[in-house]
Structures are given as C-alpha cells and as structure tokens.
C-alpha cells in the first residue's frame, strides 16, 4: 500500500485552514470582551517580538466549547485544550511570526481563533505562514472564526495596526487544541 503523501510538508505542516463567518453575534462579542476586560490584560514585553496586550486566562467556557465543535467538524477530532488566551491590539500594535505567542511551547494540533472585535478594523489581519509564506488568513471580520491545523512548519502573525485606525481595537480569542 502506498500512502498519498506528496511532500514532507504534508506530514509536518498544517492542512486545514478555513474561516467560518457568523460564528458569534454582536451581543455575545460584547459580553466576551467585557469578560476579558474583567479578567485583565497585561502588556507583552519585547517589542522585537510583539506589541499587544494579552489576557492569559480567559473565562469564556461557551466559546471554548464552540471552538472544540468547530475543530472537530473541520478536522474530525479536536483533542484537549492546550492553550487559551486573548490578544488585544490597538493602533501601532502587532505580533510577529517569530514570536507567535509561543510561551506555551511548540504548537501542534488545531487552532481556533475568534474575532471578537466590535467592528471591522481595516488592515487587521492574522496571517498563517508555512516556511514564511502566507497561505491562509483571518481577515478583520467580527463574528468570524478561523480553524487552522498547525504543525511545526506553521507560524502566525497579527499584522501591524496602522495609526490610521485611530481608537479602534482588535480583540481575538485563540483556542489551541491537540
């Protein structure tokens, strides 16, 4: 029997990368943002890697459950929650690919990312990269969620938020399962 493996990347890289619209309505997003605010954010250190705020222990069980459902539907199996955090970005903020919020160690499994922002923020995109090349993205689309299968060859970055966005804020919840 010959397995249909064409490249090493098919083995170690992520394969599923989809964006699901209309996953969470405005009221639920507002409630999630309020819950995150109540939990608290801390400013990330190290502007050579990221300029953003991080909420390390979000108390959003309903969204985590939704993430499991989405991951299972997309990949056939989700596993357990390995990491869950929220990122908040304002004008001038970013998270670079070589940082990728990897404080919890190497990433393997499925990542579900919810855009919890109040409104569309121009230019606010999450890029998923394989060997540095963008192959999938989560555009600014409040209510949408990205489901991305990740392996060691996949990194992500939150693009630089131009000062032109003024007071707009981007909030993203990341749930990693595996």
């Amino acid at each position: 029997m010959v397995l249909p493996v064409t490249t090493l990347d098919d083995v170690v890289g992520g394969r599923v990368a989809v964006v699901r619209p209309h996953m969470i309505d405005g009221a639920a997003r507002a409630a999630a943002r309020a819950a995150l605010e109540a939990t608290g954010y801390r400013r990330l250190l190290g502007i050579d890697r990221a300029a953003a705020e991080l909420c390390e222990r979000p108390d959003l069980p309903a969204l985590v459950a939704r993430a499991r459902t989405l991951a299972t539907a997309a990949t056939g199996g989700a596993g357990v929650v390995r990491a869950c955090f929220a990122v908040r970005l304002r004008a001038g903020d970013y998270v670079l690919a070589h940082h990728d919020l990897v404080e919890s160690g190497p990433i393997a499994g499925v990542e579900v990312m919810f855009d919890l922002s109040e409104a569309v923020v121009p230019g606010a995109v999450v890029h998923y990269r394989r060997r540095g090349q963008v192959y999938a993205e989560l555009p600014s689309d409040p209510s949408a969620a990205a489901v991305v299968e990740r392996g060691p060859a996949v990194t992500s970055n939150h693009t630089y938020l131009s000062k032109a966005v003024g007071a707009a804020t981007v909030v993203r919840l990341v749930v990693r399962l595996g």
Partner: protein
Amino acid sequence: MTTATCYRRHAVITEQDVATAAAAVCWARAAAWTELAALTARWRAATPFPHLVVDDLLSEDDLATVMAVLDDEVVELYQADLYAFDATAPEPASAGLRALRASLTAALAPPLGALCGRALGRADLRAFGYRPGHHLLPHTDHQVELGRVLAYIYYLPTPRPPRGGELELYRCRREGDELVDITSAARVEPRPNRLVVFEVGATSLHQVREVEEGLRLSLAGWFYP
C-alpha cells in the same frame, strides 16, 4: 509584492549620462569628514549605541544627480510581518544605481572604517519609498553569517515631506536569546540630504516609525568588511 511603480521627478537624458554623473558624486564633501577625530568622538559618545548623523551631505548638483538616477528606478512593494515599504531590488538593476553604490562605497568606506575601527570593503544600496502606512518594526540587522558592520540611511527630498518615518533607536540589553529592558532612546528625523550611520550589533535595536502622511524617500544599505 505588487505592481511595480517608480517615483519619476526629473527628465532623464540617457542612462549612461546619469551613470557617469553618479560615479562622480562626491559623498565625502561635508566638512565633518575632515575632522575624523571629532567625528569618532561623537560616534563613541552616541547613545544608545554608536551612531552618527551628518547633515548637508551632498552639494545641490550631486543631490540633483542622485535624484536623476532614481527617476528610472523601479520599486516594488515589499511586505512581511516586520515591514511594508516600496524598494528597488536588492541588487541594483540600473547602471546609475550601481555607479552610485560604487561612488558611495569608495568615498565613505575609508572614513567610516576609521570611525568604527574596522576595515570596510563593500556596501550595498537600495532605494526605499515609504508611503502612508509603511513601516519597519523594531529589529536588529545583526546576522552573523551576513557580516554587516554598519547600516546607513541617506534621506532624499520628496514633493510631499513625510509625517512620521523617523528612525527610532532603542536602549536594551541581551539576556540569553532575548532583548530585555527595552526603552526608546533616540529619534532621527528623515531630513533631506541627511546621512545616518549606525553600528550593527546584537543590541542595536531600531525601527522606522510608520509614515502617516507624505512620502519618505531614502537610499540605504550596509557596509561589510
């Protein structure tokens, strides 16, 4: 990368004429270069890491020649997580830009080498255009395998002077693989006909702040042994 554009400003005669003029550009005209001891003292005293700012680098005629060289240079959009800007190709495509690189290297490698205590042999050169929203986030240029010794930026006049686009230098220290205790320490305005040179090292953290309006034009590159 997207569709190629160029910042045409001047009528060009021929590429060979421009290249000949570019080869004759006098990069070391500024009085500062004749007082190397004073320059070296400024270099060493500069914080957060050795750097130098030289204003009025070129004569008006030489500046016009540089702008004429750039008339026909094609730039493309370069975009990654760290940056967004327009730039010429890493290796100059035109005879004019190659001649500029040669004249700049010949004139500035000796005094800059004396300044930093390293023999400098070659330099590279690209033209950069930063439009609104363009930026280069905090990073160091240090990569052992590349051997960069000094970085330089030479700012050019533009029809719409930029708001933003300053070179920002950071004070920091290295702890293992990480830079820590990072604080902003200096900002250099992108003033036309100004040269900035700084040391490339593991802690020479810097950025080009976002251009919010106008256009920031420059030539930039590194000096190597």
